[in-house]
């Protein structure tokens, strides 16, 4: 490996959190962005081609060395490390809404989910996945929530744009052409009369 790749590898080894690209640049003032990128590619190739137990991952706008998934069971069985607890369905729903609609108030989240989210927000905030990012202008100036870098780390996302765009989702929010309208309407009418 080149000296720069070795330096970056050492820094990645020393850090528990993903290291942002500009933080990597600070390690060597002479290295250009292109050189940094090729050094990172070199490390990644080194791990992948030579077959290492770790891999280089790009997460939350930074870089991090992670163990490969196939060794997780063995590591956990030996109690060397343990996986964090899973998020509940309610927590995931709330996070999904915040990720797409941020900055968003509690009332708006509750409108979409159809249930109260106070305690879920609290626990998400405690886990550092969301934070208060401001206040709305409206009545009572409610707090507005947004996702944090920890959110990106938790889901191994490079950035928020990596989530599917709303027009890429299978369910479309617009109403399709009313081709079946007549048939379905009669079905409905039957239903009403039958009831």
């Amino acid at each position: 490996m080149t000296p720069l790749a070795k330096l970056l590898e050492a820094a990645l080894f020393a850090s528990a959190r993903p290291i942002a690209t500009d933080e990597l640049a600070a390690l060597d003032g002479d290295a250009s962005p292109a050189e940094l990128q090729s050094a990172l590619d070199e490390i990644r190739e080194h791990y992948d081609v030579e077959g290492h137990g770790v891999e280089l991952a790009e997460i939350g706008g930074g870089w991090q060395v992670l163990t490969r998934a196939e060794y997780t069971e063995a590591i956990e069985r030996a109690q060397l490390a343990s996986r964090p607890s899973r998020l509940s369905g309610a927590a995931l729903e709330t996070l999904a809404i915040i990720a797409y609609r941020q900055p968003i108030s509690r009332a708006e989240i509750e409108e979409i989910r159809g249930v109260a989210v106070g305690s879920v927000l609290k626990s998400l905030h405690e886990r550092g996945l969301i934070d208060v990012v401001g206040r709305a202008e409206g009545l009572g100036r409610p707090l507005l929530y947004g996702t944090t870098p920890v959110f990106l780390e938790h889901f191994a996302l490079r950035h928020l744009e990596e989530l599917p765009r709303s027009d890429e989702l299978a369910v479309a929010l617009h109403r399709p052409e009313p081709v079946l309208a007549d048939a379905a309407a009669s079905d409905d009418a039957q239903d009403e009369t039958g009831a």
Partner: protein
Amino acid sequence: MTIASLDSRTYVDAPSGEGAFIVELSAFSGPLDLLLSLIREEQVDIYDIPIARICEQFVVRIRTLGLNEAAEYLEMAARLLRIKAQMLLPRGAEEAWEDPRAELVRRLLEYQQMREVVDVLERRGEERRNQFARAYLPTAPEPPQAPLALSLAELLSAVDRVLRAAKQPSMHEVVPRTLDVPGAITIIRSVLALRARILWTEIVEHTAEPWQILSTLLGLLELAKLGELRVAQPKPFANVEISRDAASEAA
């Protein structure tokens, strides 16, 4: 089905006491979730929901699941009944008719979209969960303190400085001093035998120690209680006047 299916019987049937507020958290994450699963089960078009059938199913389901005490599910049941009622109203063919289900459909679609994102997040989160980062820790660790660079001589001189700085504690012995009330009474009696009226400052010397002052005070009070003298103060903070009690004198 009639609106009466949400009558008081619903509440009477509901488990009261211990099981009054059991919500099947694992099954449904909210009324919209339940509604969506009903729509899937019944295989109906989400853009043209047979509201009467779905409403009936919804009410039956929340009753069997014991969800009918959770406000959110009740609110949805009420909403469905209202939409059903609106659907039954005669509609004029001429004027633009707004589907009362439109708002509900919009919310259901929005919710469904969000559930799709949840699937993405769940998958990504599970993948990441199966990989450990370097120095697995819930939070970033504090950098450890640098090891002490210190020679034995420096340590000993530091100990020496500390010991020299620490003074010997100054000891103070507290000697209990008993009050001499009988003695004070004798003195006051003898003074009053000579003079009918004296002032407090006259029987307490300037140089008197606290125990002497206290003894005199207690002696005075004792004599006053016995009725041998009167204690008076013309105004606040004025000198206290002590005089022979006229009555006891007469006696």
